[in-house]
């Protein structure tokens, strides 16, 4: 079943929509959640919430790309769950890329300096300014929380190349946000 057909099922409030989305994108979404949460039970729980969210948001939303839309929901729900887990002192490996990015921006200090930056615009503009290859690497690391070896393997790069690209992307991000502060 193609994406448009699945979306139509959502619009006609047919519960087959959930099953179809699950069949088509379940493994991908589970991977996204697992990367962030580390625990399969947490990830599966998150996925259930995501399907519910999907049911609640389509309609009125009509996603241009269903895979990306689902990933975004799962990713954001996973991070909410992660935050809860961290508050409960439960570890999660996805904390590493985020710490890496936040630290590069603030030098380990509080993130408060960027409190007034409108990130929803700034991040999108920043991503637009990157070359596609670097943008993909940046997204995979800091949005999808992929590890460096995973990115290298997925894209066919050496790990050193990925590290180098990430370093430069973080620098650009920092300098971009500094510009936004002025």
């Amino acid at each position, binding site marked *: 079943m193609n994406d448009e057909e699945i979306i139509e099922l959502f619009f006609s409030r047919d519960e087959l929509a959930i099953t179809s989305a699950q069949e088509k994108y379940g493994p*991908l979404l589970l991977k996204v959640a697992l990367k962030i949460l580390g625990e399969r039970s947490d990830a599966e729980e998150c996925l259930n919430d995501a399907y519910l969210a999907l049911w609640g948001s389509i309609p009125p939303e009509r996603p241009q790309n269903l895979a990306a839309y689902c990933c975004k929901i799962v990713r954001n729900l996973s991070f909410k769950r992660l935050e809860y887990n961290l508050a409960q002192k439960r570890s999660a490996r996805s904390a590493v890329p985020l710490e890496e990015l936040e630290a590069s921006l603030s*030098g380990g200090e509080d993130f408060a300096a960027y409190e007034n930056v409108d990130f929803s615009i700034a991040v999108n503009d920043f991503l637009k300014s990157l070359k596609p290859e670097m*943008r993909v690497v940046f997204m*995979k690391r800091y949005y999808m929380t992929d590890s460096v070896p995973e990115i290298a393997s997925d894209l*066919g790069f*050496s790990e*050193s190349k990925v590290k*180098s*690209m990430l370093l430069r992307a973080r*620098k650009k991000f920092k300098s971009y946000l500094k510009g936004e502060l002025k």
Partner: protein
Amino acid sequence: MKKYRLSEQLGNIDEAFLEEVLKYTEEKRSGRKTIMKSSFVLKSAAIAACAAIAIGIGAVAVSHRGEIPVMPKAETAEPAQTEKAEGAGDDIVVVEKSYNERIADGETVTLETYIGKRIEHQGFAFTLKDITVSPTFPEGITKEDIAYTPTVAAYTDGDADGMSYSEKFYSYREYAKEHGLPPIEEDEDYGDPESGEGAYTERDLYVSDVIDDNGLYKGPMDVPDEAYKWVFLELEIENLTDEEQLEYFGDMQVCYGDYITEPPYEIYDKDGNVIYTQPEYSSYTIYSLVCYMSEHTDKKITDDRTDTFLNVSFAPSEKKSIILGFCISDHFIYGDLVLQLHNSEPIFNQSEYVYLPLK
């Protein structure tokens, strides 16, 4: 302040970017599968040929400076490549011995060996027409291009060179203090002040940075102009106008010296005497390298010098012959210099090390 506010903010990005990631990743994966399938038959010849080029570049660079001993890295010797590619004609390069075995047998291995030979790789073919080595910079390329050295992206503890970033960081800080150099920016200095755990700096460690046996930062190495040499390879490529082939060829990369400093290694002077022994891991010794493509082609290289890779862009062209120029600095040892066609598949599986002398 909420610790992971940034993660929430990133959650609001335009879905088009996420779509791009999914698409790009899928394309890369499927592209790799296609290549692996199509290149199976010629794989052994291709590996051998590329290895030969890699080795040869080093050999040419060395021979240009005189009779400098070429030291293979014995412990990385690979089994000899003895398979002949199915359907390969006599004009296709098949290396029957590994580079290390050739050296051990007292043979001379140079890139010249492959001049005029047709090399097939991943469904297309090229012939190495000529090699020249020159100290002169090509028109349009300046020393400033060289001065842009790849950064060392050591960003986590226990990085590939065996030294944790904390160690590098504190090492540099001590050095800077001692020599009155500007300290690392304050905002880059964090981590546990007692243990150094988590210490982090994004100050780039350059190729010219020297770290001694004990992991202490020793300062930059001065590289004189005359240290740079250019190696030009003239390649005649068949069917360069074929779109499908260009798709692969367009990703051609020049890889070099990817974390090469597995100790122990030695550096020789022009008479072959050992002038330096590195018993432990050092800083990265990736050297300056600039790739240049002559006017024979319609396109120039992209300025995407990330770490050990230079990405070269091609466009459909009626011209078959191209010249690739690599600038190397003989101040630095280097490892695999590989003409890699399409970055998705590890076509080079031999680590052959050629050591260049310090002046």
